[in-house]
């Protein structure tokens, strides 16, 4: 999996490259518009992470160039411009997803996971992990041919954890993922714990090995595959 990160903030780029590299992605970094154009024309990428504000050009015009060349690369915009206009404009030009800064590495991880999976297995909507079979279309989870009935939140939680497998996902990231735009209103993240507890209980009941979800000192959780 090849990913191109176009981001001018060196420290942030370093974190992203480090996080994604450990998830078996080959992540390259371009800090300027020109460098990015050069790489896009020379190589093919599975996914491009695009910052809209670059020191020598506008990310949106880069996106336009990319779409003109009809490359099938998935694009996720990562921008500090949180305004709805930019989001709509970006999606309209052909971006697949939009993440506004600041975001959690795990959120980015799960978005890339979804994007690449969509591109690669467009006909296949089944993923498997630790003996669980997840149908993404019907949103059903099976273990040993038997369905594990989950709520929507629990399903999202499971996908988020599997999308960041073997990485520690912070409770904050989970809370924000589960509650969408409203998360930033509340301080109490106990509801995450409640959902994790329910999910664990349901998997255990279905006979699934309960070591898959590891709790890290109440700060985060990890899906061990």
């Amino acid at each position, binding site marked *: 999996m090849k990913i191109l990160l176009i981001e001018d*903030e060196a*420290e*942030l780029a370093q*974190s*992203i490259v*480090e*996080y994604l590299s*450990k998830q078996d992605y080959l992540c390259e970094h371009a800090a300027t518009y020109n460098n990015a154009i050069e790489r896009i024309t020379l190589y093919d990428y599975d996914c491009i992470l695009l910052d809209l*504000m670059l020191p020598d050009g506008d990310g949106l015009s880069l996106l336009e160039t990319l779409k003109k060349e009809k490359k099938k690369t998935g694009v996720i915009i990562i921008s*500090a*411009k*949180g*305004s*709805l206009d930019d989001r709509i404009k970006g999606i309209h030009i052909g971006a697949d997803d939009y993440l*506004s*800064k*600041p*975001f*959690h*590495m*795990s959120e980015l991880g799960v978005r890339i996971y979804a994007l690449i999976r969509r591109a690669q297995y467009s006909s296949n909507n089944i993923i498997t992990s630790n003996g669980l079979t997840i149908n993404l279309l019907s949103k059903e989870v099976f273990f040993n041919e038997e369905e594990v009935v989950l709520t929507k939140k629990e399903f999202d939680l499971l996908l988020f954890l599997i999308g960041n497998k073997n*990485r*520690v996902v*912070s*409770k*904050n*990231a989970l809370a*924000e993922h589960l*509650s969408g735009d*409203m998360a*930033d*209103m*509340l*301080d*109490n993240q*106990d*509801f995450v714990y*409640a959902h994790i507890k329910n999910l664990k209980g349901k998997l255990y009941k279905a006979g699934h090995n309960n070591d898959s979800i590891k709790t*890290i*000192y*109440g*700060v*985060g959780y990890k899906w061990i595959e």
Partner: protein
Amino acid sequence: MDRIKKRKLLSKTLSYYVVFGILLLLIALPFYYFYYQRYYIHEIDEYLLGQKDEVCKKGLNTLRVDEIPLWNKFNIDKKILPDDGQTETSRFVTSECYDEHEKENISCRILYSRIKIEGKDYILSIHLSIYEAKKIIQFGTILHLIFFSILLIGFVIITHLLYKKLWRPFYQTLSEIRRFNIRNSEIPVFHANNVREFSQLNKAVEILIANSVQAYKIQKEFTENASHEMQTPLAVFQSKLDIMLQQQDLSESQMQIIQSLYEATSRLTRMNKNLLLLAKIDNLQFLDTQDLNVVEILDNLLPFLLEQAEANHITTTIKTGNKSLMIQANRTLLESLVNNLITNAIKHNAPNGNLSVELEQNKLVVCNTGTGKSLNRKMLFHRFGQMNEKVKGSGLGLAIVKQICVQYGWDIAYDYENGMHRFSVVFG
């Protein structure tokens, strides 16, 4: 200011002219009448004196006493009367005398003077009718009144006609200014005109608008830039925490530090987002509206919020009914308003407290158990006005609610009753 009655500039101007005109008329006409009368009588008096001198010089010294009746017979306006000793002489008198032509008594000016005929005292009376003169003066005065009135009426009519023509550029400018909307940053084009004052006005308004548009643009850019500048370091900070969390050999106490830092960044992020939202509401950047059903919005938002309430051991009561409540608003803003009101009621609730959300007619009421006293009404809706050390809010929630209500003209009220904080929003 609104109580002052607003009048058109035209009627204001005209009222001064009309008042001046009528005053002038009231003063000038009597003055004209009396002055002319005095002047005329003075002229008559001179004439009478002249007549007397002429009579005395020519003929009186040759007149005999027995000729007096004959003299009187041929002189209509002059008579020689015997001196009765009571008539005052060398004085002009206005009195009635009998006129042969008119066959009636008419006003006359009479001069009596003492003369001597053959050594005896006689009175010479010379008179002249002022009847015609009075009539002429009256007629003149009436003519004056008529012309003066025509002048005044004509003046009013012409001013009316001129007003429309002269002020047309002004009204054109006014309608351009009314149509101006700073959000589309279009500087209106004013019609050229040949009146210096209006040209100056247009020029000044053009500069004013250009400056406003410029300031608005700068403010918008500042908002965006501030957002970028603050969010990038926040993103770096958070990404480093995410990376740090992946380390294998972290101790529990190190993890707790990481958790505290996570909470601090998320609070900072929240403040930044809310400040931006406030700035955008202030900048009227949420102008697109649609028909929204408040019941539907509540149904969408409540599951998550109630889950939060439950996690905080809060008992909730929801009364929305099945009815719909349609309003015109921006979806983001309405959702933000509902979210802020209800999350506030959750965050600032007492342990094991109550929360109720009610929709009655066109009113949304959110109540929560308080901690004993009413909130400071003055500061409640101010930015960072009601910061609470125990509850780590962004301090902007109610300011956002207030700002949204201001934009749509909704009423927001706060009450404290029976230990419950009560916020109510009346839509429309």
